[in-house]
């Protein structure tokens, strides 16, 4: 009863205008620390990733961007040397500390890595893989989804006649789009992308980037990039990291055009 009243007054006291503009978070990172031995890779990260927006992670090589991304879907589990503490809330679930169904939580996030890693099966089965894990058995439904997702990433026309050949036979750029389609097929709310265009040729990069611009309407996107122009084109929210700490964050205009810290100024000078 008491808590209810407290909550009510809280809501009442909060001015309407602010409540409306305060963005909802898709991911909420609290006191995240990652150590590898004595190396403090991520230093007390507190970050809200706004829903249905593109958050770009920037920072010099080795500052911990990939590690941050991997902490978000608990892939840090694969590395015993990484000692992870803190919380990462995906909605209400703390993925780092729950005994919750981790695979199901991971399915809320699609992952796109620097290099495409197609599964050792056909193009079709790559996209169908996650659906089957989810328990979808209806063949027609799977086929429909595969087609939709391949269209969504602009790959359908190129592969529709060879859906059942190996995914390895695709070019790197096509493979990366396939990996994106595969991730989208499990219907995630969030897309995590670690330098998704760095291994690609300019044309493929452009296609992937265009896809992201489309996708941001429906998904929360966290993307690591070293390409400042790409950051500028895509970002709603820029986060600048340096030696495992978040130094600055805000809109691209604020962060990229008007840097405050000396570290960011230096990074921008080298970058443009």
């Amino acid at each position, binding site marked *: 009863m008491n808590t209810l009243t407290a909550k009510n007054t809280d809501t009442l006291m909060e001015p309407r205008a602010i409540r409306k503009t305060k963005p909802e978070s898709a991911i909420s990172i609290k006191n995240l620390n990652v150590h590898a031995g004595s190396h403090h890779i991520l230093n007390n990260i507190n970050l809200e990733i706004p829903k249905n927006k593109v958050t770009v992670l920037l920072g010099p090589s080795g500052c911990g961007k990939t590690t941050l991304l991997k902490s978000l879907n608990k892939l840090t589990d*694969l590395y015993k040397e990484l000692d992870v503490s803190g919380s990462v809330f995906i909605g209400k679930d703390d993925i780092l500390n729950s005994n919750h169904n981790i695979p199901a939580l991971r399915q809320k996030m699609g992952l796109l*890595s620097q290099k495409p*890693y197609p599964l050792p*099966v*056909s193009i079709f089965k790559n996209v169908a*893989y996650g659906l089957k*894990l989810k328990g979808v058995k209806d063949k027609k439904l799977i086929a429909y989804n595969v087609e939709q997702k391949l269209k969504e990433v602009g790959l359908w026309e190129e592969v529709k006649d060879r859906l059942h050949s190996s995914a390895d036979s695709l070019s790197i750029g096509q493979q990366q789009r396939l990996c994106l389609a595969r991730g989208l097929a499990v219907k995630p709310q969030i897309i995590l992308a670690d330098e998704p265009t760095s291994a690609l040729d300019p044309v493929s990069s452009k296609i992937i980037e265009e896809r992201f611009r489309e996708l941001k309407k429906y998904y929360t996107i966290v993307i690591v990039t070293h390409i400042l122009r790409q950051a500028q084109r895509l970002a709603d929210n820029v986060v600048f990291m340096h030696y495992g700490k978040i130094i600055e964050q805000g809109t691209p205009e604020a962060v990229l055009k008007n840097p405050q810290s000396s570290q960011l100024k230096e990074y921008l000078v080298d970058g443009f």
Partner: protein
Amino acid sequence: MQKRKTIEERVFRILTGVACYSLIGILGYIIFIIFNKGFSSLTLDMVTKLPSGGYYYGGEGGVLNAIVGSLYIAGGATLIAIILGVPAALYINSHLIRYKRTQNTVRYILDSLWGVPSIVYGAFGFTLMIWLGMSASLLAGIITVAFLITPIVIRSFDEALSTIPIGLQEAALSLGSTKSQTAFKVLLKQGFSGLVTAILLAFGRAIGDAASVLFTAGYTDLIPTNLDEPAATLPLSIFFQLSSPIPAVRERAYAAAAILTIIILIISISARYFAKHYSKENIK
């Protein structure tokens, strides 16, 4: 300077080439000797008939008993090694991936087991057999040889699996697979041709080994019809015939060796064919 470089390059090429081709030459010579010496005895009888009473003194018959016995033992042992070895290798590369030290210890132990001479496995199998109250039999032979080749299956499949980039596992996990699903749906397929090589290696070792079956499988002129009957093997058959004072019998030893070589060649070629056609390029 430029000239010295090209001379160095040429010398190096010649040395490495000689090393490589002389090995192939030696292998070719061994095969030549076997076929040359065994050719006249390599008759249809040899592969279709059991040894008659006087066979080891030059009498009628063939080595069908040893051919079948060897196939039974190598096949059975390889089957056991696959059943035990495939999950073990997958485990090392999925669940143990975060425990590098345990992973290395396990690998070291398996490597040591690989290096243990087969006579030791034979002695071990013999002790085990006595302890279980068994006598020399097909089953005892299969179990002993399985001990010998399981480390080979695990380690050589593991070697193929360990080259799979961790990014592929990350991809599979991020799509919502559990570790076991990652292992069986992704790693197994990705490492499939490595598995075929591992099985081939193990089968070759199993069918060619004499010491491990010496005390455990026994020897018989008949084809075993049951797991608790003794079984003949080609290596022992070769050994018995080769130690005969009669030239005709020694010739048959070479013929048996040729048969053993042919079996290994057939298995090897068909396995490669199989690996190529069912590797990930063609998995639908």
